[in-house]
């Protein structure tokens, strides 16, 4: 066993009342591909942010090649040889791959008028390509590249500058097709051959056995297991069990006891060019309908089409049996459809404002007194009651939403939904960045809502969809996939969403 190139011991991090990381021990060795696994909220992202210098640890030690390091900024981490490729790398689409790779380090001198040494750049690019012979036209504009080519540019950009010892890839395959994924794995093989350690974050467990040498599993803010893939294979270890732990089943509420009631929302043959086609489904009162789809499957677009943000090109929508046309969120809200959007920070909340402002926002008609005034006392009472109902913590109506944790921000969006008294609730990625306690609360609220309204849960987290919904279907590349008979098992749902195949 080689000496670890990166080692973390007893690392902890606290966000307000939430202990995001507790005593994490972790290491990677040179030239190994190390998968980092864990469900949302397990602490993976927090840990990666600490390793890449975006946030600072509260306690513990990190050493790189034996020397203790403290990262105050991302530059510190890069200088120490830790390069990170974010989940959605930021590249300049109008510039060539080459220009992107050397952006900001075009020439050795940094004066205002130092000339860009085009020949030198090309020499450096050729040297880089000689080290990592990827089939990639670096002179092409990034905007015209495929997803995997952009990922490759982002990786080359990350490792071009300094002497990189560790490369962190945050869910690089979530937007890639099957074939593209192989190309990425080939590039990772090249990096590995150079002795670079790769920390690889993924939610797709089959990839671990395909590409990784070893893996760590995060759960509840700590690293619960580290083993090599060979050991896992020999011991017939279930990654899913490791990730979910024993108690995890409890976070989902019991399924509906009574059969579902009347159809509330009926979608028929919804099509939106380039995003999804031929989607037909029915949401009933008394049940939770789950839709599983990865990024790029058309899930988010479908939700926004139903909510009137981007109306579909074709298809009919019926509410309580009556055909309706929803061309704007206003019309959708008036018709009784509420969307808990996937990006709560930009789409769900006015972050600079407190719950008192956000909760009534989607139903100002209810808060209004006559044509002009506001029933301020009533509004305050309602906001207090609803934030209590969703167990907002801390229970403050006057703290700006930006001051709450992700889970509690989501609870404010939920209270806003409750205030709007809709008949259909559509949740998109309801628990991204939400800690485990708040997740259980949010799932329980969904169940509670489903008694009075139709609830649709759309998520790229298969376990979430399978865990909370009574009936599930998958979206794959804009196409709806349903079980031939009965309901999807968890694994069948996963396969349907990832591969687009019904395996039953």
């Amino acid at each position, binding site marked *: 066993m080689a000496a670890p190139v990166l080692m973390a011991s007893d690392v902890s991090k606290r966000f307000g009342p939430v202990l995001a990381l507790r005593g994490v021990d972790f290491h990677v060795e040179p030239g190994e591909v190390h998968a980092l696994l864990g469900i949302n909220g397990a602490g993976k992202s927090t840990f990666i942010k600490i390793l890449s210098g975006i946030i600072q640890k509260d306690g513990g030690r990190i050493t790189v090649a034996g020397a203790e390091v403290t990262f105050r900024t991302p530059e510190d981490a890069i200088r120490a040889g830790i390069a990170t490729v974010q989940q959605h790398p930021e590249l300049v689409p109008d510039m060539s791959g080459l220009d992107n790779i050397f952006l900001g380090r075009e020439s050795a001198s940094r004066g205002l008028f130092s000339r860009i040494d085009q020949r030198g750049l090309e020499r450096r690019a050729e040297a880089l390509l000689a080290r990592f012979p990827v089939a990639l036209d670096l002179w092409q504009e990034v905007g015209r590249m495929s997803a995997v080519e952009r990922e490759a540019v982002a990786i080359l950009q990350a490792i071009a500058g300094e002497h990189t010892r560790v490369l962190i890839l945050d869910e690089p395959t979530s937007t890639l097709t099957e074939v593209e994924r192989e190309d990425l794995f080939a590039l990772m093989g090249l990096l590995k051959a150079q002795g670079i350690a790769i920390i690889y974050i993924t939610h797709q467990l089959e990839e671990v056995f395909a590409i990784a040498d070893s893996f760590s599993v995060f759960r509840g803010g700590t690293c619960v297991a580290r083993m090599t893939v060979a050991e896992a294979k020999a011991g017939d270890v279930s990654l899913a069990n490791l990730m979910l732990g024993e108690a995890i089943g409890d976070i989902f509420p019991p399924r509906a006891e009574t059969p579902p009631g009347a159809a509330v929302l009926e979608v028929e043959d919804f099509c939106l060019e380039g995003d999804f086609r031929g989607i037909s489904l029915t949401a009933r009162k008394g049940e939770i309908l789950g839709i599983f789809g990865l990024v790029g499957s058309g899930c988010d677009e479908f939700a926004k089409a139903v909510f009137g943000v981007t109306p579909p090109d074709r298809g009919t929508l019926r509410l309580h049996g009556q055909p309706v046309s929803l061309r704007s969120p206003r019309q959708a809200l008036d018709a009784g459809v509420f*969307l808990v959007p996937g990006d709560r920070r930009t789409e769900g909340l*006015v972050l600079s404002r407190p719950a008192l402002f956000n909760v009534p926002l989607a139903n100002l008609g209810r808060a209004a007194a006559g044509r002009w005034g506001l029933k301020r006392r009533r509004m305050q009472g309602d906001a207090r009651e609803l934030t209590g109902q969703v167990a907002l913590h801390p229970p403050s109506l006057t703290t700006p939403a930006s*001051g709450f944790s992700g889970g509690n921000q989501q609870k404010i969006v939920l209270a806003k939904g409750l205030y709007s008294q809709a008949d259909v609730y559509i949740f998109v990625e309801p628990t991204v960045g939400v800690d485990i306690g708040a997740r259980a609360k949010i799932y329980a609220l969904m169940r509670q809502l489903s008694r009075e309204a139709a609830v649709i849960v759309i998520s790229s987290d298969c376990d979430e969809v399978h865990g909370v919904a009574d009936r599930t279907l998958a979206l794959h590349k804009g196409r709806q996939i349903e079980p031939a008979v009965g309901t999807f098992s968890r694994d069948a749902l996963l396969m349907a969403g990832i591969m687009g195949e019904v395996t039953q």
Partner: protein
Amino acid sequence: MSGLQDMARQSARGLGFLALVALVGGALALAEPRFLSAASLNGIARHMAANGLAALGLTFVVIVRKFDLSISGVAAFTAMSMGAVIAAGAPLWLAVAAGIAIGAVIGLISGTAISRFGLPDIVTTIAVGSICAGLAFLYTGGRSIFQNFFQVGITDLNDARLLGLGVSLWILLAVYAVAWFVMHRTRTGMAFYATGENQVAAHFSGIATRRYIALAYVMCAICTVLAVLLILAESGNAETNKGANLMMPAYAGVFLGAAILGGTSVLATLGGILLITMLLDGFSLMGVPYYYSDGVISLILLAGVLAFSDTARGYLAGLVAVRALRRARSGGKA
């Protein structure tokens, strides 16, 4: 932060503002004793009315996080338009109605171009403002309009008094009272703020965000017309340069008020414009040439916003902390 802390912070800001008013007033009175004379105070009230109306209009636009640089142009064109209507022998109310209508149309054009067609706000309003400045020469080729001004009674807006205060100040207070109610006590106001602070989330909450942005520009143009009306009443004639000195004080009032009182609001603008008008009038009493006034106001604006910004305060606190740390370290070594 709890509600109580929030209230404490707000009242601290309010007290700070009053102290600042007293400080500025005291300093100006020391430098120029005439500053506290009745004539001077009346002048401040009148100028504050005109400046305050323009600043209020701008407040709507700033709340939806946009800019309007057409204020001077709109003021010039509507001044000449109202002047032309008065000169033609029409009654005052008709002139005012014509001015407001023209202003509303101009505001609607800017607002629609920006909100519906996505044009950049700064470029659009500079263009609209320049067109308006050109149109101001349409009626007389640039000559001053004064016919019928005294007969029509417009100067009463400047001279008449009600309960001991000038009519123009009453107009200011009435318009501000309505604006305060709408912006801080109705769903319309909530929609304005939500649109400015997160347009996407507001849209997803069913708020017609583009309509509110357009409405902000309409309100801004109408308030500009009211402001220039008071200027016409004071001077007794209409000229193409009448609105030239409205824009900078308006921006200074909105941003200084927001910086001191912790956010853009109707009351913050009122406070900001009080300070700015006191300074402007004080300087002119002390004989500071008018061509320096915009520069001085802008300087005060930058200094004020900097002094009250959290980032600048954090930076200063950081500097102090670093110096203290260095001193402690060097002390430790010695």
